[in-house]
């Protein structure tokens, strides 16, 4: 009975697919000889293929429907395994060793893409403060990234500021711009907040693109110096390794700070803000302060990442700070699991490294990316590693009355 139904469903899917792919799979126009070639065999192939895929998919979905509790149990088992100190300590040590020897074993190219991925780890963790912890959906996170990158580039160009001075300055300027966006959007939330932040990012990008006197427009700024190493001149290879270790250290710092923040007072205020704004205020939490600090602290990391990006590529222009970039960072946070630090790290590495290693499929990158997102929504809506908050245990005290 069920099987016949699925058969029928798949049949219609195949029919629909054949219709959809008709123009690209069947019709081929030869513009030189002005003839149309009809490749009818292709429609049969696409029909058969989509029928089989759809049929398998539905069988799979049905089986998943039956075994949901077991699947969930295995997911939480994975998290319990992760929380087991006997397991995660050796894993961490192996990971640390791998990170240490990585640049000496692999090629210059590998080190470079790993460095880029680490920049995205920082960006993902920073956005995680805003989206994952405080629940402020920010679609314009790239604006802070741009502020950081341009503050290093411009300060260096005009005043000859070095990397190490520019790093905190860029972070500060980004934090300041975070507060700048924060003020007008204090009363907004959800979709409206997302729209305003999106607009803010576009404003920043358009200003950078059109204000030639200030930012050199679309041609960008080149010859940005790489960070110095105690005044020594480094070859490009050495400098790449140096950048790599710099980013490892900064990522560790980011993880440390964000972990501390997450379980601090302000972290709890953010969580309350995310869960329910009105109740959050009724608890005596200063909503304005909580929102502004979330924006400022989230932006700080983007600013630092921007400075690092400028120093790594030695050239920046507004094309690096488009909406697509914001969407990518947001995808990292959502895929990884909102609020979860290891999840965000895994997602950042996966989303940046996989396209590099799968260059063969580069034409289909966006299709695969979309498919992966849809799969995640169906099978793991909470992200790769959902956020597990610390559990507090209270034991009863002897005299338990308030007097």
């Amino acid at each position, binding site marked *: 009975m069920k099987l016949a139904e699925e058969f029928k469903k798949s049949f219609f899917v195949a029919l629909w697919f054949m219709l959809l792919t008709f123009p690209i799979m069947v019709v081929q126009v030869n513009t030189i000889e002005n003839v149309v070639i009809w490749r009818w065999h292709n429609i049969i192939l696409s029909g058969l293929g989509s029928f089989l895929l759809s049929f398998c998919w539905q069988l799979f979905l049905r089986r998943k429907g039956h075994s949901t509790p077991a699947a969930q149990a295995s997911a939480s088992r994975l998290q319990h395994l992760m929380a087991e100190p006997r397991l995660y300590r050796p894993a961490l040590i192996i990971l640390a060793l791998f990170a240490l020897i990585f640049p000496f074993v692999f090629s210059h190219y590998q080190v470079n893409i790993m460095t880029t991925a680490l920049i995205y780890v920082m960006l993902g963790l920073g956005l995680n403060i805003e989206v994952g912890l405080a629940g402020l959906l920010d679609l314009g996170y790239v604006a802070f990234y741009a502020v950081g990158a341009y503050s290093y580039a411009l300060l260096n160009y005009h005043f000859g500021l070095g990397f190490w001075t520019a790093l905190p300055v860029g972070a500060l300027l980004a934090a300041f711009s975070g507060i700048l966006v924060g003020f007008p959007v204090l009363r907004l939330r959800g979709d409206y907040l997302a729209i305003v932040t999106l607009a803010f990012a576009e404003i920043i990008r358009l200003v950078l693109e059109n204000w030639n006197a200030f930012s050199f427009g679309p041609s960008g700024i080149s010859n940005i110096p790489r960070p110095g190493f105690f005044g020594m001149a480094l070859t490009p290879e050495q400098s790449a390794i140096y950048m790599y270790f710099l980013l490892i250290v900064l990522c560790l710092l980011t993880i440390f700070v964000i972990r501390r923040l997450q379980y601090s007072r302000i972290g709890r205020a953010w969580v309350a803000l995310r869960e329910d704004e009105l109740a959050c205020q009724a608890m005596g939490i200063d909503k304005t302060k909580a929102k502004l600090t979330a924006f400022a602290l989230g932006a700080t990391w983007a600013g630092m990442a921007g400075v690092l990006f400028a120093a790594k590529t030695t050239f920046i222009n507004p094309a690096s700070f488009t909406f697509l970039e914001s969407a990518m960072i947001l995808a990292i946070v959502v895929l990884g699991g909102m609020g979860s630090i290891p999840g965000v790290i895994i997602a950042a590495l996966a989303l940046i490294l996989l396209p590099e290693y799968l260059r063969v499929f580069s034409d289909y990158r966006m299709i695969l990316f979309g498919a992966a997102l849809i799969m995640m929504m169906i099978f793991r809506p909470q992200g790769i590693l959902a956020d597990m908050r610390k559990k*507090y245990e*209270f034991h009863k005290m002897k005299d338990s009355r*308030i007097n």
Partner: protein
Amino acid sequence: MLKLIDVETCYGNIRALKGISLNVAEGEIVSLIGANGAGKTTTLMTISGLVPISSGQIFFNNKRIEKTDPDKIVAAGISQAPEGRRIFPGLSVLENLEMGAFLRADQREIRKDMDYIFDLFPLLNKRRHQAGGTLSGGEQQMLAISRALMARPKLLLLDEPSLGLSPLMTNQIFEMIKKINSEQHMTIFLVEQNAYLALKLSHRGYVMENGFITLEGQAAALLTDNNVKKAYLGI
């Protein structure tokens, strides 16, 4: 303890409170009853500073608080269990209670209060690690009241604790409110639609209609008042 003088509150052009005055003395349970849209919740939100006041004065312990920020008002000792419970759905019962004690730093005292609350509502103790959103309506209401208590307020504002609860559960909640008042001498200002239960529980009461206070008096007197009987008690 709490005194409102000629308080007006507007949402845009709509005047929700058209100049109301009331007072709550220490140790009392005072209830504010009225129909839908009379302005009861707005009154509570104005006291808590969650809705900006248009004119009038609010005194709490002889200090004016009508222009104070909501977080400062909580710090001053007014804590609210908002309408519709508004517990944090993704946080566990314990974490919800912890949020209630956000402004406090005295860990030992917080633990004591938590133990007291678990004595008061043993059901919450059973569900301490369960997410707030998975509790039943009655349990959520217990949690909302407990969360407000965790701030160790001098004045507790309760907004429709009977909302959406079965009569049995409502009775249970009201018993607890009475207990909190008598055991801890907690001053309670209660907003309710269930006029009969509210007045039975309270010492004094106010009746609200269309943004005005139309009647006030001892709760027992209001219960026998003919107008109240007709309009709210259905007798």
